[in-house]
């Protein structure tokens, strides 16, 4: 490593609030601004290193984020209901994690990119993707339903952490073209054990790229608790080995999440190198509708986390501050209902995917073999129709 690079990293460490003595150790405490009862904590209690500010976002940004939070909760519950009614194949709900979902999208500018997982539908919709288009994948019509380039949102990725490397590639291409694109890449706690997690963080650090790896630590990977993934002091500590800063934040505190991620975006856009953010949160519902969470966790634990609900907390906080009126609240609820109605309408509409689409887009031009197979299917279909 050249001395140049070292100076770079030391400076980055400083800007992230890490003392040179601690080198890359993550900030000591979880950043939390609003407690679980919706009360603002004193500056000393918020967890920031002395001299490092996590400014509370502007009032209108808080309200806008809350609006999306209300919608996000409604979207989660509507989708789960649609699965129960047999309208969708599967839905991995982020119920309980909506603050993370909203913040992951809210911190980005228009030219920035988001790389989500299967769990991050609410983040995808928060970024502006049409809810019905976003649900195409879970409805079973096609593997993806929106144009990733239009919204600068990657296709929801199921092979764990593979998308983190795509985020790195997008950031690197942007850098080569002299663009200041920031990329937020999402994954879960269990996924941090995958090889691509390691490779992506290392690549981002070595190439000094503006990527924020945002881990939603919801304590479980399907049934497997975090203790079986790692014995590191925290997931944020994993940043140390890559020469990257790591932070921890209360993942059910939307105010803290916005503060941490917006600060992160500002710093990485300014050239500080990548950042790892670990949010502590909880998946209130089962992994998917196909999962039975009672087989691996106690109800008492779920109850404990229900008391930390991110929506209720934010509502109390905004009401106490006099920002959220009854009128606004009912407007947000109505908007959420409208989205839910559109989802019901969209999912209840009969869809008939065209079988000939199977052969489109495998290659830019169908190969002779695919042309033959497509003709064979067409003939089968026309025989079916005739009989």
């Amino acid at each position: 490593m050249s001395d140049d690079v070292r100076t770079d990293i030391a400076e980055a460490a400083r800007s992230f609030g890490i003392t040179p003595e601690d080198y890359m150790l993550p900030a000591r405490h979880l950043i939390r601004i609003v407690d679980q009862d919706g009360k603002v904590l004193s500056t000393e209690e918020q967890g920031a290193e002395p001299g490092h500010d996590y400014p509370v976002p502007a009032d209108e940004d808080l309200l806008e984020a809350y609006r999306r939070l209300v919608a996000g909760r409604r979207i989660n519950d509507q989708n789960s209901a649609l699965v129960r009614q047999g309208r969708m194949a599967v839905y991995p709900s982020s119920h309980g994690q909506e603050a993370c979902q909203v913040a992951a999208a809210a911190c980005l500018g228009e030219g920035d990119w988001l790389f989500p997982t299967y769990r991050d539908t609410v983040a995808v919709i928060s970024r502006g993707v049409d809810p019905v288009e976003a649900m195409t994948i879970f409805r079973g019509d096609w593997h993806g339903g929106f144009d990733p380039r239009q919204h600068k949102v990657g296709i929801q990725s199921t092979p764990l952490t593979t998308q983190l490397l795509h985020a790195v590639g997008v950031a690197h291409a942007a850098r080569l073209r002299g663009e200041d694109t920031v990329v937020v890449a999402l994954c879960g706690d269990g996924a941090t054990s995958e090889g691509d997690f390691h490779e992506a963080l290392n690549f981002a650090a070595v190439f000094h790229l503006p990527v924020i790896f945002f881990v939603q630590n919801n304590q479980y990977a399907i049934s497997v608790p975090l203790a079986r993934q790692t014995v590191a002091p925290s997931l944020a500590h994993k940043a140390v080995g890559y020469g990257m800063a790591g932070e921890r934040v209360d993942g059910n505190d939307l105010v803290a999440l916005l503060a941490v991620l917006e600060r992160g975006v500002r710093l990485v856009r300014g050239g500080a190198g990548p950042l790892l953010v670990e949010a502590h949160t909880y998946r209130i519902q089962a992994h998917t509708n196909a999962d039975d969470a009672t087989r691996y966790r106690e109800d008492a634990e779920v109850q404990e986390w229900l008391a930390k609900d991110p929506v209720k907390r934010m509502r109390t906080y905004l009401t106490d501050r006099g920002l959220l009126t009854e009128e606004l609240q009912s407007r947000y609820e109505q908007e959420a209902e409208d989205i839910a109605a559109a989802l019901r309408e969209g999912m209840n509409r009969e869809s008939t995917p065209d079988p000939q689409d199977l052969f489109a887009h495998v290659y830019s031009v169908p190969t002779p073999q695919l042309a033959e197979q497509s003709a064979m299917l067409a003939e089968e279909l026309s025989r079916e129709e005739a009989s």
Partner: protein
Amino acid sequence: MSTTQNTDAGPRPGSAQTGPDTGEITVAVDAARESTTRAGGAGIPQPRPESPAAPVPAGPVTMAKALNAALADALSADAGVVVFGEDVGTLGGVFRITDGLAARFGTDRCFDTPLAESGIAGMSVGMAINGMRPVIEMQFDAFAYPAFEQIASHIAKMSNRTRGALPMPIVIRIPYAGGIGGVEHHCDSSEAYYAHTPGLKVVTPATVTDAYLLLRAAIDSDDPIVFMEPKKLYFSKDRVDLDALREQYESGASAGAGPRAALESGGAAVARTGTDATLIAYGPSVPTALAAAAAAAEEGRSLEVVDVRTIVPFDDATVSESVRRTGRAVVISEESGFASVASEIAARVQERCFHSLAAPVLRVTGFDIPYPAPKLEHHFLPGVDRILDAVDDLQWED
């Protein structure tokens, strides 16, 4: 030479100045290195037209040099092309295929990454999403396996999953196959894994000219292409004028039958014409098939050799046309035979040419064993004798 001490067929310390020293690779320069200039067939480059500006006759060029020139010309032609991988920058690749590119085009266009093949492939996906044409190098066949998830789950499928919104114009270059006395993990014929994966195209040149033209076309293609380079042919030579090839490619002179068309709908080439039986081969096996055909000719048997060139898309038309004409076929490849590309070819020929066949289609492939240690590899590889034995078995008389 030592075949067991040098794990990677890379340069030994202090040998970097002496040209393309690739360790044990140097022993690969065997009889099969003779020029394999073609006799006819689709997309075969014509002899260089007399150019008044360049009276000097074309000198011998290695396949390695042709690949290097193709990369350089692609980097010049398209600012979106980027080349990256392990040791491809300063060193120029362990086989020197990227020699001089970083110096000429800068380290933004040709660069080394950390040692992580999944990382290289995954990063190329992101760069393709963001408008670039990545050309990535896997250092050796067996070291591409860590990248398989990114290749199979994303590179191959992304365009399909997004209904064409995110095409993946990525070229994955893989030096492959044996015959170089390499130790384990350096000699795998891994083409079947990729050929079995819908969404990928799989291309492998056997001549210096094809190496240039197919690589250029692969880089320009919007489909992801696994470009498999027979490492035993890297230092095979042919008299080729690289400037003329560039002009030919960039002017699209051979459009229709050229390399772009080959990548679109399959582009096998008849490497040697014959009348009695067809040998179907690709990549490292083409020179062996040609040598077998030459030996058979001395015994009065006329064998045609078809060079598959594009495993995917497969050129059923050229292959079937040849087999229908000769009535007999042997498929030759270095891979283990079970569930192999050779098996697929044999099945396709059987389905299409059954009524023209005088004998079952036979396969001459590697055994169904892990690639052997250097001292035993000659027993594994399809050689001239084994090919001629198979030809003898094609139910000739009585």
